[in-house]
């Protein structure tokens, strides 16, 4: 298992390298000059050159990349062009908030998705199965920003039960586990949970249905096992695949919440990303994408390792 782990981690390094190169090149291929936004419109050629040198943009690309990576591993991701604040601080603050939102959505979505999926798989081809299927297809198909707006209209505007904007009294920088903060989390987390409920329930339904139709289920009953015993076996068989789907869903939740964070003004990475795009803040854009991409790579690694650890059929050498 240890050698598998080491090998798997070593395999991640080239992927991480590729990701960093793409993020770096993003600045190069983006149309327009990143400095125009902060430069005076009437800057002279010398002033422009000086600015270029100050940002290291006058050096050849590989050197620029080396410098960028060198700074990166020391935790220096440059400064935001728009705010002048260090990118690292901005990104980590935002990722923390996004993670909070993503994990909350996952905590809502995964148990519900597992429960519904199991129900549909166990009662395959009955009205229960059809109801769950309809529900999950609706969940996956409804645009979630639209759903977010509908929920805001109902629960914030009409009923005034829950707030629709921001992350609570402390603003973007301080989160606390009290109702004043949690009530801000409810609507975005619920909205974000709808798609993974659909996907997890579809996955678990397929898994449970497939496993229940296998011969060993008959064999379990034939040796006198109870229904509860059989369901335990089914769960254990489904665990590895279900966990990996959920791990990847968590990755998507973190990276894919741009629209939801924008709808709810949630100070997370998606919100930061959309700001960075609209303000053409390339260092910030670069840093945010890099961190999100690396998180996704890490999530994949964790999923693979966990799967190998709990599923004896997977080759671990």
């Amino acid at each position, binding site marked *: 298992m240890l050698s598998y782990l080491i090998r798997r981690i070593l395999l991640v390094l080239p992927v991480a390298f590729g990701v960093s190169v793409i993020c770096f090149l993003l600045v190069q291929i983006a149309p327009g000059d990143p400095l125009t936004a902060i430069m005076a419109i009437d800057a002279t050629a010398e002033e422009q050159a000086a600015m270029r040198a100050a940002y290291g943009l006058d050096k050849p690309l590989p050197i620029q990349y080396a410098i960028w990576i060198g700074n990166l591993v020391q935790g220096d991701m440059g400064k935001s062009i728009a705010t002048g604040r260090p990118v690292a601080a901005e990104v980590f603050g935002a990722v923390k908030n996004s993670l909070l939102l993503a994990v909350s959505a996952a905590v809502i979505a995964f148990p519900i998705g597992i429960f519904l999926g199991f129900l549909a798989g166990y009662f395959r081809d009955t009205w229960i199965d059809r109801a769950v299927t309809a529900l999950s297809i609706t969940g996956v198909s409804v645009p979630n920003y639209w759903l977010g707006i509908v929920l805001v209209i109902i629960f914030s505007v009409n009923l005034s039960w829950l707030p629709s904007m921001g992350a609570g009294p402390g603003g973007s920088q301080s989160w606390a586990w009290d109702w004043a903060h949690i009530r801000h989390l409810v609507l975005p987390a619920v909205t974000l949970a709808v798609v993974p409920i659909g996907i997890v329930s579809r996955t678990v339904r397929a898994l449970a249905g497939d496993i229940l139709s*296998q*011969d*060993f289920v*008959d*064999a*379990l*009953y*034939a*040796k*006198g*096992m*109870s229904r509860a*015993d059989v369901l335990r*076996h089914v769960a*254990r*068989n489904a665990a590895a695949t279900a966990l990996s789907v959920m791990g990847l869903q968590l990755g998507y939740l973190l990276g894919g919440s741009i629209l939801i964070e924008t709808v709810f003004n949630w100070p997370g990475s998606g919100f930061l990303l959309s700001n960075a795009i609209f303000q053409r803040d390339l260092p910030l854009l670069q840093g945010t994408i890099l961190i999100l991409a690396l998180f996704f790579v890490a999530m994949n690694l964790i999923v693979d390792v966990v799967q190998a650890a709990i*599923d*004896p*059929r997977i080759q671990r050498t």
Partner: protein
Amino acid sequence: MTKLLEMKNLNVRFKGKRTVHAINDVSLSMDQGETLALLGESGSGKSVTLKTLLGLLPPKRSQIDGSIHVNGVDIMSLRGRALQRYRGGEVSMVFQEPALALDPVYTIGHQIAESVMRHKGVDKANAMSTALDMLDRVRIPSANRRLHNYPHELSGGMRQRVMIALALACRPRLLLADEPTTALDATVQIQILLLLRELQKEFGMGVIFVTHDIGVAVEISERVAVMYAGQIIEEGTTHEIIRDARHPYTQGLLAANLHDVARGERLSAIPGAPPALEARPDSCPFAPRCPVAMPECRADLPPMLAPGDRRRVACLRAAQPIAAE
């Protein structure tokens, strides 16, 4: 002594998109410790008969009529805990595909122990030592290490030995073996057959051995019941079946076997295919393939004749001497 098995007028019908009359009026009885081969080609209802015996048919889609008593107990009325005690305790089963019948994510030791814990009420450690003992008895080498293997780490033959160990761990009075060697290589098949025969002598349980291979049937069992289209069309001791088969179908099987047809093709050596069972047969189901069929055969179900003690044949011609072909 109470009969080990008394099955009377069993009928099984599957409902759904297509109705299948899988079992039609099957009666069977077995003494304690008897070995019976249930012989028939694919689709003749052998597996359904065994599954009915263990109450494994999907309740919503199957309609079961008739009665089954095992050691005097009406097993069709068993529910809940009583049914669980019966399954694996009183009667247990070895499946055709050992690769599919074992749970891939539990060790084989766990899977045997689980059953022992349920039936004997012992703790995990005790159950594991029973499992180890059973692996020894089915002649699995270095059983101690194998206990912690997963099914995919074993060969097909080893997996079938594990299934047998699992089935016998709680000392059932009746073992159902559903084509236990069909999925295995020829040399392994023979080893498994010999093992089953030895274990039967050692443990003294009754065995229903399902096969489509008449050679295997006569090798393993004292009695043979031949199934066709969900009916038992002939039954007798192995000796009677070999020497004095009365039903043209059984005779065809024997002839094909003697003429050294390649293994596995023996049953298809009789031209034609068994009938689709969408309706309950109301004439001799073998008539379309029967070389000696008469017009009367298509008019009504042939009567069940009893030419001897526990000897039966369902054929109009069985009463009269048959002209050899």
